[in-house]
């Protein structure tokens, strides 16, 4: 059954999943943080820049997903036309390589979004504690970075 899909198909699925999952996570994270940020700005517009930074923090997972997808697509040769015909095994390997950033990106971005909401709460009450507040969401991101690392290393080291 699996072999009825070509290797390129599996690789494309991997790239798509990396973008879709990580992007959905970031959309959720930036979304909830944005709601909290809007609440703060209605009370005190001068905090706009600070809460905007907080809101953007969970957005990076989406970028990491895009990054892996882009490396995958250029590796397979889907960008710029032509490219190799992959066998099914290689395609599945690329799919597997894309999964870490997809799944970890999804979950970590959602949690980072909620942490950002809490950090925006800190900024609202104690703007001078901005540095510390920023650190909490950044801690969550570590795991997205680790997943990104494995995805990149895996994709680049698969022989096409």
């Amino acid at each position: 059954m699996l072999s009825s899909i070509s290797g390129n198909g599996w690789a494309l699925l991997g790239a798509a999943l990396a973008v879709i999952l990580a992007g959905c996570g970031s959309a959720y994270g930036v979304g909830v943080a944005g709601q909290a940020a809007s609440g703060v700005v209605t009370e005190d517009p001068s905090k706009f820049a600070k809460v905007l930074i907080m809101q953007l923090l969970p957005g990076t997972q989406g970028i990491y997903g895009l990054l892996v997808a882009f490396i995958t697509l250029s590796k397979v040769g889907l960008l710029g036309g032509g490219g190799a015909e992959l066998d099914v095994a290689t395609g599945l390997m690329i799919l597997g390589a894309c999964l870490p950033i997809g799944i970890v990106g999804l979950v970590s971005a959602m949690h980072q979004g909620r942490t950002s909401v809490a950090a925006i709460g800190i900024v609202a009450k104690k703007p001078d504690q901005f540095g510390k507040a920023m650190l909490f969401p950044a801690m969550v991101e570590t795991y997205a970075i680790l997943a990104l690392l494995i995805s990149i290393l895996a994709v680049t080291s698969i022989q096409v």
Partner: protein
Amino acid sequence: MAVLQMQRISICALKKDRKAILEKIQSMGIIEMDQIAGDEEGFEKMDTLSDRQELEKKVQLSEQALAILESYAPEKRSMLSGLAGKKLVEKEQFNRVIARKEELVEKANVLVTRSKEIAEDKANILKLENQIESISPWLTLSVPMNYSGTKKVSMLLGTMPGETTLESVYAQIAERSPETEAVDVQILYMDRDAVYLTVFCLRAEEGAVEEALRAGGFARPSQVTDQVPAERKADLEAEIQKLNSEIKGKEEEIKNYADDREDLRMIGDYFRMSAEKYEVLGTLPQSQRTFVVSGYIPSKMVSKIEKAIGERYNCVLDIEEVKEEEEPPVLLQNNKFSESVEGVLASFGLPGKGEMDPTFFTSICYVILFGIMLSDAAYGLIVALACGIALMKFPRMDRNLRKSVQLFFWCGLSTLVWGILFGGYFGDAITVISKTFFGHEVTIPALWFVPLDDPMRMLLYSMLFGVIHLFLGLALKGYSALRDKDYMGFLCDCVFWFLLLLGLIGMLLPTEIFAGIAGQQIVLPAVIAKGAKWIAMIGAVGILLFSGRSSKNFGVRIALGAYDLYNITGWLSDVLSYSRLLALGLATGVMASVFNSMASMGGKSIGGVIIFIVVFLVGHVFNIAINLLGAYVHTCRLQYVEFFGKFYEGGGRAFNPFNSKTKYVDIKEEN
């Protein structure tokens, strides 16, 4: 790189010099007020609360007046004016303005009154407009609304519910009051909710007819005028016109005050300073003839105060060391380059009591790590240029803001260097442009290597930078211990860890696992390879035995040691954390290539060039912004969590001197 030494200064002087001395201290701004208990006999504190409130009210007044001016006669400002900082004003000019303070307060009052009047006028206009609206259905009526009819005939004026028609009114009257002789109904106006009508009937039957109509929902209008509606409307409109022109006049009047904006700002600042002064005054212990000021002062400023106050006034100046149980405020002093990172340090926490100031090391590491994360020569150049120009153009920028901009200037330069090393110029823009528009590929080779082509190598270097950074932190911990003459702490918390970690690294390097990752076998000299194991053992045993040295119980001590040894996993995760150097570096480069290849999709044509320019600009602006944010956040994290985690706690209190806390102008001191 130092925390300035603080001393306690106490000045006892005559009351007649009180104002002059306080003002001098305020303008010098180098003493943080901290009064010693003044409940000794003969000393009392003055109640300055009401004076202060009076001053603060005036501050509010000037702020209100400025806000009103801003809304009616906005000041022209460029987008970057936020960077400009406070204006520098000559003392003489400032005094000239202050001399006119009564007049200016009067002006501020006028502004506030005018703005209130305008608001009232606007409310009145709204009221009048409502009245016009309520009579507008009656406009076709040619008699006054309170006209009740002639001697024999009476007129009923009122509304009925929406769907009423002429026929239904007649039917209503016929049904409810069948003996009615004559009635005439006219509908004046109809809308969805109501029908406006006049009913004429014999005066004798008025009661019966109205009764009949009321059953169908008839109601007399709530507002009745003794004028013909059309005339009334004209009157109301004239009134509105009058109010409008009045408003216009008042707005013009307000605009005429625009020239006083600067002066209003200055008296606002004057009242602010005075309020601050009164606040301090309220805390001073005073006897009948004398008063005492006490506070913290950086040691090297003492001579300045001695010259400015000790020699000029009749007073006793007493300088003493800060007592053991006191916690003096923290003021940092660093070189031009390192001070730029003070803001980053302050947002983590200033050095606590007895801690060293890590600003110097932090600044170097911060700039280097930031550069690796952003790692694009063109981006670095843009950031450095933008910050450099801002620094040159706005020499009076706010001090803290200036430090941050300076930090980004240095980070930009570092990014430029790393970008050249890694061969990133707007990502792969040069390759893409030359291929798309000129037909042959040009690549600027990386001075070192391209991380995207060899991520494993970059990963290893990231970890190497991490190990260096972390070892620096550990070494600083050792340095602090040595400085405090805590030799045991130096040995156990620093030396043993170094032995253990270096030994472990020495054991790891020659293994096959490492060779598999690095792609090459590292062969260490036999002595080191053998010695590494023993060095690690010595370190581990040392930590196990001495880490819990504060505990007397041997069993607990070993348990604590074992727990501390477990921290080795913490070191592992700390080192792995530096893989973000690779991840963020790649993120910049790959995002840039995504935008470049999107931009080049238009191909080699005029349209293609236009598309290229637009996509290129938008894409790279976005990429710079998002990656600057990423690099900033993650460099901070590496400093705060990994680096500071090894040796630094923070928790100091910032030096907050009694000075002129102005909002709009700085006053130039004559010397």
